[in-house]
């Protein structure tokens, strides 16, 4: 935008003679910088919101495939669970499922809001989707711990541990991105309100 604005102002000034007075006139005709900066910030924010919405969906899809891969790995390694662990695992798995599908539903609505420039709703829904996903990943961690606790250590552990590490890293990156978005939104609102 800086290059565009500079090109615009120099062209206007040169069309009117290139004098200092022409430059002052060009700057005055350009408009209030704060107002234009606020409008541009709002446009950039809408674009970032769409990108964040896509990131929410991507992390959810990745988490889903990571979960499915772990389940397939457990079936392959035939790691069993004791009766106590099975009881706990059933409850945690149910919470995991509900949290995951809540993240999917809320995430989808958040993306739709981002594309419709309903940024306030997007701002409210993103933490809900991220929170539900976080709860799901936490449940995955508990379920993985229950499995690994009952199996003898081997290099087979690396697969579920690595997939959990990647899931946690993706959710952490998403949370950081959403926090940055929330700060940008607050700054843009301040700029537009000034």
């Amino acid at each position, binding site marked *: *935008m800086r*290059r*565009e*604005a*500079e*090109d*615009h102002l*120099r*062209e*206007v000034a*040169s069309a009117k003679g290139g004098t200092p007075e022409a430059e002052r006139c060009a700057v005055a*005709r*350009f*408009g*209030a*910088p704060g*107002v*234009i900066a606020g*409008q*541009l910030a*709002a*446009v*950039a924010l*809408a*674009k970032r919101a769409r990108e964040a919405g896509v990131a929410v969906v991507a992390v959810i899809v990745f988490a889903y495939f990571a979960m499915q891969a772990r389940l397939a790995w457990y079936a392959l390694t035939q790691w069993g669970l004791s009766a106590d662990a099975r009881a706990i695992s059933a409850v945690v798995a149910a919470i995991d499922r509900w949290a995951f599908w809540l993240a999917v539903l809320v995430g989808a609505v958040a993306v739709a809001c981002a594309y419709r420039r309903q940024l306030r709703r997007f701002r409210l829904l993103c933490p809900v989707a991220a929170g539900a996903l976080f709860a799901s990943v936490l449940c995955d961690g508990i379920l993985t711990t229950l499995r690994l606790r009952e199996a003898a250590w081997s290099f087979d552990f690396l697969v579920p541990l690595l997939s959990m590490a990647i899931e946690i890293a993706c959710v952490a990156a998403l949370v950081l991105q959403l926090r940055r978005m929330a700060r940008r939104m607050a700054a843009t609102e301040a700029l537009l309100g000034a």
Partner: protein
Amino acid sequence: MEDEMLKNHLDMIVLAALATGPAHGYAVIEEIRRRSGEAFDLPEGTVYPVLHRLENDGLLASRWVTAESGRQRRVYSLTKRGSRALGEQRAVWKAFSDAIGGLLGGARPSKNPA
């Protein structure tokens, strides 16, 4: 011309200004001023948020070129989606202005407005 009325139709005005061919921001402003008979005279910088938003929405595309002055210049052009959107907005505007014209002119409105 009332600024508020103009702001509500700025997207359509900018798309219409670019319908004749690619142009940079200042050329768009000048085209709007010329074709409106100098009726539209907004602060020149206000066209840039509109251009950026229309580009984000896929209605415009932009590319950087080197101007005669040697400066880098961003030139905007309508995409196919932008041309379609402009066509739709023209039709809506025509129907709206015919209806308002009928009301203000005192003529009986047609039973089936477009």
